[in-house]
């Protein structure tokens, strides 16, 4: 069971959070994007071996959606590449 840093509550057990999935690129503008790019945005979820940026919802805590980098090989919560926070 991981220990996830919540920006408001500090380190809390994984069981207080709901998984929000890997962070996708920004939503493309539906007016200008191509069909292929839209489908790509919808269906291709980042699934790297190594650090992945993902969202968690502190649903049984303060309700914050937060973003962390997690190494999929070790579950270590790590500094992301060029991560500003």
């Amino acid at each position, binding site marked *: 069971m991981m220990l996830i840093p919540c920006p408001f509550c500090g380190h809390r057990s994984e069981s207080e959070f709901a998984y929000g999935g890997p962070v996708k690129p920004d939503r493309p503008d539906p007016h200008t994007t191509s069909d292929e790019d839209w489908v790509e945005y919808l269906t291709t979820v980042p699934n790297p071996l190594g650090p992945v940026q993902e*969202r968690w919802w502190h649903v049984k805590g303060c309700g914050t*959606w937060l973003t962390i980098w997690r190494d999929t090989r070790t579950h270590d919560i790590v500094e992301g590449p060029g991560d500003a926070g």
Partner: protein
Amino acid sequence: MQDRRFPTGGRIDRGQPLAFRFNGKEYTGFSGDTLASALLANNVRLTARSFKYHRPRGIVGSGPEEPATLVELDGRHASANQAATTVRLEDGMAARSVNCWPSPGLDVGAVNQLFAGLIPAGFYYKTFKWPGWHLYEPTIRKAAGLAGAPEAPPLDGHFEAVHAHADVLVVGAGPAGLMAALVAGRAGRRVFLADERIEAGGSLLDRRLEIAGRPALDWVAESVAELETMPNVTHLQDASAWAYREHNCLMVNERSLVNSTVLERNWRVRAGRVILATGAIERGLVFPQNDRPGVMLASAAQAYVNRFAVKPGERTVVFANNDSAYGVASDLRASGIDVAAIVDSRDVIPDFARNFAGDIPIRAGAVVVGVRGRRAVRGVAVAERDGRGAEKIDCDLLLHSGGWNPTVHLFSQSRGRLRYDDSLATFVPDEAVQACASVGGAAGELSLASALRTGAEAAAKATGTKIPDLPAATEESYSIAPLWHVDAPGAKGKAFLDIQNDVTVDDVRLALIEGYDSVEHVKRYTTGGMGFDQGKTGNVNIVGTIARQKGVPLQDVGTTTFRPPYTPVSFGAIGGIREESVVLPYRHTPVTRWNLDRGAFMYEAGARWRRPGYFPCGDEMFQETVNRECRAVRECVGVYDGSPLGKFELKGRDVDRFLDHIYTNLMSTLKPGQCRYGLMLTEDGLILDDGVAMRLGEHRWLVSTSTAHADTVHGHMDELLQTQFPDWNVHVTPVTSQWNNATVCGPKAREVVAALDTDIDLSPEELPFMRFADGHVAGLPARVVRVSFTGELSFEINVAPRHMRDLWERIMEAGEPFGIEPVGSEASHVLRVEKGFLSLGHEVDGTVDAHDLGMGWIMSKKKGDYVGKRSVELRRRGNAIRRELVGLLPVDPNVQIPEGAPLTPGGETRPTEGLVTACVWSVVLDRWVALALLENGQSRHGETVHVRLKNATVAADVMAPVFYDPEGRKMRS
């Protein structure tokens, strides 16, 4: 008669005799015994039958490593497949051997031994292939005969799960662990110390060692007493750390609690640093007939003699490849057991060991090549490694020691890597990955002095304190020459690597010949190491046997993966009190009590809300009840409790554009006081939820959702606001439980609400359909909303929960002259089907979109963008055949169609063209009516289609999906 019990000594309380039954016979033991020690004290030698060949087996070990004797406990201790060596004896306990019928002495399955040569590794997989293994598996498993799970939950008591936090978690209260706990405790840190045995001391309980010139157990007692004085220390005995998970989270299962109503308590301990003082486990030697009752690990015999004051035999032979067995021989002889010989596979024996042996004859460079006696050891055959100098020695106990394996299970679970150590001939912890340190035997530090030292060092490092002066202790030496299995000429018969799963040296050889090359494959093919003991005494011998066969170093073979649990844990303990009713309690409305008093049949209706299904009257049949409730709504008036609907209050300057983004239709054009039905999609264009949005004020809205999807919608809104639109000014407050409502519906609804005495003008001009008004109803502050889920004139009266019961009773009172009936979920379902109102989970199943439901009008064309818009457009562009919502009238009006039944062309055995989503008895049409999703259904009205059932087809006419008041005049009235 405990005729194998020494009159004095041991960690047992002779003042507390305990009566117990084993395989139906009565015995007594003492407080402090395990089931195994009590059986040995009563000279019960044959205690089990083996898993595959049903060979007679006895007790081999003294702790969780026990590979042979598994028992099933009955009565209040009911549990399956427990190692007899870890069962704490209690008065009145009843245990049975698991793998034999009717008893280990007379076992019908023993006939398997005759065919043993025909049951090699992989026999079952190879033989029972056609048509599929799964056809045979249940019978084979049953023949294998391990105990089943208890059939009922425990009669008294419950399981518990708790969280704990520690700066330093110490696993194991042997010399290293106690020392570590003392150092960390004295430094004032929060210390959590857990040990699997009944009392602290670890290996010191089993041996006769000294610390600071006094018996080591005095030091143990003083240390435990000192820890007890420290409020910052939690010390648990009979508590196994069984899992080491990510981020230093460990699971500790505590048994034998002071509060006997707690059967077991599972601790989830999050630790700053973990000190693993889990000790080491002796592994066996592998030689022919090494599984006979009376063949025992040397360290186990030492434990039985010293800790339990039990004499495991009268005359013993000790077979070893290392020095530790010499101390055992010395202890046994001091207790009056005749040690006939020490057989040592090494040519050169260190003086350190020889000094222990005294005048016991030693045969160096020799091995045991066979054991006499089937149901009990009667003697051994010994020869030199090249087969010369064979001799037979009579004995009733054969002790063996193949070396010591550090208990690296938790370390390995923490993802720490292991390294093969040549001088110890075993795997030891290498680099740690998480914040943990291995000390003492767990780190391969096998002497007492080094255990104390490494324990103190690790705790000093963890707490940033100085290493204290250590008490003096013997620095025993230890040397070993690996012997993975005996293959001297003349050594014939089955030599077991894994005693529990009956895996022999030949099985491993066969697996390698057949190409199962990696240690993980060998494990799965032979099942070696897959028993309840997880190969604690045998796995390293398997690795050694593979290495030898392949001619590679053990490091290259490696170990199999260590996975939790370290020792078996009851499912109850893992679940704790998170039993269903506690984890997911039912949600109730203030009307529940009234419903029950009224005789309602209650069940769950989405998101754990417990609601009335229907209100039976007299000896009505189910359908009669539902019809009566439906007729009340259609003909006069009914009332239902709509409180469970999800409700969210949204405030802020940007709510308008936010709602326009999440609903498919335009919401921002609503004026205060107006409501609008809306649909929410997910970004991939599927329907997420439907509900009603109300504008309360310029920047204040109330959004209602379906009962089942309230939490989903909440998450959806929160995620969008926090991740996509963090700069939008929208605040979402869940108010599901802050607003309850009673919905009065039916042609007489207005008269009933008027009779309640209200200051709200209920006329259709002032309060038309899809409007709401705030005021008072029956003297209670209320909001009255004109929405309808039944197709009738409806007033949804919303009040605070504390007023709900009051309101409800007033409505029933006021409605009585009009024939009001309370309406349950069943009637609500009928009423919405008659109107063709969609229901998520029935008509909306994750494939349909709004157009399929005939609701294309709700997909705004004015808005450039909203969630799901692009995806719906994309999906519909291909002109693919869609399943569309239709109404069905069975040609025979008295035929009910099961919900979910498939529609096929002509009712033939062909691919389906749709399915029936709902079928109800319509009180307005006096017949069965159904809703269905049908391919191109919207252009097939008037056609006859066929429902294909198992033994019949049902013809039905297709029509528009609305059976009652298609213009919606009633609900607008």
